[in-house]
């Protein structure tokens, strides 16, 4: 209850604060004082709600359905943090929390832009607050409070998943700042001052949203076990698209600050980026993509809110831009084809095209719905369309440092990186890169890397703060090299490993030694050196399925990626009639009849099969149970046979003909087991991570520079 009270108080503070900000405008400084005070109240109540939700998690208050749904008492304390943002309600609160705190940096400017900027900014926070009140994390579980929570999805119990959502939502929250400053500029019809605010915050969002995306990719690689880090899934694309556009925006503002060009473009981009976040939220939270993604989407019943919010924000922001568009004066700029500014504009164009193509692909189920049959595009679409763009971007990023601003020729210093690139490309060719398209791709990526590294090293001595961009671009080149080597040139093989038997794969000897609690133990030997691979493999009650995580042997030249697929145990499936007796090892199993206790429970059918099991003189009765729900879901409760030597599952029943089908699994000491695993080599995948780290450091340096300038 208290939580919702905080949210309602936060909402009222926000509404009144927005009202006072817009009412006074700049003519009444004292109304701004009231508005600011109300904003502080908003910060206070939002923080109170956030802390209160943390408190509920750390005190295991399972009467709250959000706490019940995402935590349990046996969850390590550290992961209670991720419970907070494991569900959608919590992520909205996190988003709001970051949003209101970042807003403090916008306030107290004491200029004519404070009021309109804060007014628009508060509209964004009000929108989030309305979503939160519609779908509150403080709802109570109906009926009697449960004693234990459902726990947290085991896949989310990972360090990287603790920090991934805060990074993403810090980026999301910050993207509202360029948006609102651009709107304020449009309202005031003055277009210079907003750039000073817009640029550092665009860089800030690019930094945090980018870090969030990369961390998410690394988590997928480390935990999910399908061998990759990027699957072009709608959830991933929903954050990639605004990221690409905010990168375009920050280049655009840089250009505008230099020569006043691209004025309308930048205003449009600042609006677009924010609208794309709303659109991405709609795509991933509304359930419209439920049939098209490996991620589970649920319709939370907030579709209408999201659509109305999207339409309102889009219409007033784009409407304002349209109304002002005739009054926005852009100086005429003449660009030489061999100038740095021309190169940057073309780069922005390529990056936008890439983002638009990804946007179209991600929206394909919606677009095709209007044409009749909803369909989605294959991941091949994204690869095919982005590959040529990445080549062109790699080339531009490499050549631009050697073009002068407003210049008309290429600097001769380019010869060194070109020379290095040729050598590296030859090396790649000798090492086995034979496909023309990948060779060209690698060549351009290496060019981007060497060229920018070269300039970065030269710059760093003179002035570090101006070198950030070059470091980011060098990192981009490095990352692109790693992307190709680790995906196009990865090799993998599936291996069957009977327990205790040694198998040779690629010069490694592999021996599956058995299951140790939740981990498999595989002895891996390579040239006399041994190590134990211990991928996770266990049955999780939470997901009602097997949780597998890969074992990764990291090395400089490439990772060895060992992903368990299946554990085949000795098992037998049989169909039995009532009264029939079958043999399993030295047991006699008779199907006596259906369990009399069969009944329905909460609309579910619960059926047990009574089995009489005998060996020698020993006799016992066991009852495996099958539960069938209305939605067609099934749950099997196994019966334990002979002191745990075998498990019996009831797979299917046919009440009319009194038949059942069973699966019996031998789990005794000496039972044979075969582990099926997939072993892959990921050449130079470390370059992907190293590249992303350089991108982040470069962005951080640039952010420092641009905040200093803004002061």
């Amino acid at each position, binding site marked *: 209850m208290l939580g919702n009270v905080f949210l309602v108080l936060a909402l009222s503070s926000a509404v009144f604060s927005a009202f006072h900000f817009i009412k006074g405008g700049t003519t009444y400084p004292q109304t701004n004082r009231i508005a600011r005070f109300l904003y502080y109240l908003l910060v206070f109540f939002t923080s109170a709600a956030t802390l209160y939700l943390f408190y509920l998690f750390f005190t295991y208050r399972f009467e709250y359905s959000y706490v019940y749904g995402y935590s349990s008492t046996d969850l390590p304390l550290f992961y209670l943090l991720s419970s907070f943002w*494991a*569900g959608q309600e919590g992520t909205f609160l996190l988003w709001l929390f970051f949003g209101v705190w970042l807003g403090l940096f916008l306030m107290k400017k004491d200029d004519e832009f404070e009021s309109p900027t804060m007014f628009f900014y508060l509209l964004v926070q009000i929108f989030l607050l309305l979503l939160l009140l519609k779908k509150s994390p403080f709802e109570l579980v109906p009926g009697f409070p449960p004693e234990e929570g459902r726990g*947290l*999805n085991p*896949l*989310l119990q990972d360090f990287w998943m603790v920090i*991934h*959502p805060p990074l993403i939502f810090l980026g999301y929250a910050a993207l509202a700042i360029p948006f609102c400053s651009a709107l304020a500029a449009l309202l005031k019809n003055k277009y210079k001052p907003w750039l000073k605010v817009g640029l550092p915050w665009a860089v800030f969002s690019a930094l945090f949203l980018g870090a969030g995306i990369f961390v998410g990719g690394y988590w997928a690689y480390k935990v999910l076990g399908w061998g990759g880090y990027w699957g072009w899934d709608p*959830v991933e694309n929903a954050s990639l698209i605004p990221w690409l556009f905010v990168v375009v925006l920050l280049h655009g503002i840089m250009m505008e600050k230099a020569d006043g060009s691209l004025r309308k473009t930048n205003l449009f981009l600042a609006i677009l980026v924010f609208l794309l976040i709303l659109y991405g939220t709609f795509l991933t939270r509304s359930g419209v993509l439920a*049939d*098209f*993604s*490996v*991620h*589970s989407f*649920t319709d939370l019943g907030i579709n209408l809110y999201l659509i109305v919010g999207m339409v309102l924000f889009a219409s007033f922001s784009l409407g304002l831009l349209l109304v002002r568009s005739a009054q926005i004066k852009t100086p005429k700029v*003449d*660009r030489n*084809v061999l100038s740095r500014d*021309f190169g940057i504009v*073309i780069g922005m*164009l*390529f990056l936008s*095209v890439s983002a638009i*193509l990804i946007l*179209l692909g991600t929206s*394909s189920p919606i677009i*095709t719905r209007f044409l009749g049959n*909803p*369909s*989605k*595009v*294959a991941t*091949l*679409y994204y690869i*095919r*369309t982005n590959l*040529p*763009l990445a080549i062109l971007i790699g080339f531009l990023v490499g050549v631009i440092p050697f073009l002068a601003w407003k210049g008309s020729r290429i600097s001769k210093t380019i010869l060194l990186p070109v020379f290095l690139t040729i050598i590296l490309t030859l090396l790649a060719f000798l090492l086995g890169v034979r496909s023309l398209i990948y060779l060209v791709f690698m060549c351009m990526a290496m060019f981007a890397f060497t060229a920018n590294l070269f300039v970065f090293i030269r710059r760093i001595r003179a002035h570090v703060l101006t070198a950030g961009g070059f470091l980011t671009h060098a990192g981009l080149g490095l990352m692109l090299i790693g992307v190709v080597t680790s995906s196009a040139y990865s090799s993998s093989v599936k291996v*069957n490993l009977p327990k205790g038997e040694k198998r040779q794969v690629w010069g490694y000897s592999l021996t599956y030694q058995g299951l140790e609690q939740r981990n498999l133990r595989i002895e891996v030997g390579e040239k006399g050196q041994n190590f134990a691979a211990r991928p996770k493999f266990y049955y999780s009650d939470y*997901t*009602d*399925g*097997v*949780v597998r995580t890969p074992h990764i042997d990291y090395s400089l030249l490439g990772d060895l990626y060992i992903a368990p*697929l*299946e554990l*085949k145990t000795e098992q037998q*499936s049989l169909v039995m009639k009532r009264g029939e007796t079958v043999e399993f090892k030295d047991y006699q199993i008779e199907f006596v009849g259906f369990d009399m206790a069969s009944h329905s429970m909460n609309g579910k059918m619960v059926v047990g099969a009574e089995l009489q099991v005998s060996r020698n003189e020993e006799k016992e009765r066991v009852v495996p149970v099958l539960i069938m*729900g209305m*939605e*067609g*879901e*099934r*749950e*099997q409760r196994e019966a334990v046979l002979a002191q745990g030597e075998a498990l019996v599952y009831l797979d*299917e029943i046919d009440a009319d003909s009194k038949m059942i*089908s069973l699966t019996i699994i031998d789990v005794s000491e000496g039972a044979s087991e*075969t582990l*099926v695993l997939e072993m892959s080599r990921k050449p130079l995948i470390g370059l992907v991570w190293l590249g992303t780290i350089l991108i982040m450091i470069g962005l951080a340096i640039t952010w420092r520079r641009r905040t200093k300038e803004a002061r």
Partner: protein
Amino acid sequence: MNLKIVIGIIIIVVFVIFGALSFRKTLTPYVSFEEAKRTDASVQVIGKVVPQESLYDTTTHLFHFALRSPEGEILKVVFDGTKPANFEQATDVVAIGRYQNGRFEADQVLVKCPSKYQGSEP
């Protein structure tokens, strides 16, 4: 100035055409089992899992299962991968791929679960 606008327009037009072609080419529409059998294009099918019919073959490393449509048709599916999580609890299973060699060869399998099993994957 004109030259640059022309360059810009050419770039956009080329990529729009290229993008549209790739878009159309890689679309995988939802179709009925019968249609899936008729066409050799990549499509999506949806159905319920036929119990007792799923098997992971350790020699070929293929996962075999069968789907039943609401009309009662059966479609045999092979998937070059492992049994997806929550496969048994699935209310519906989506397979994306193409029909060839007398069976539906899936590149991707999506499992739709009842809300109870809905995880909180981001």
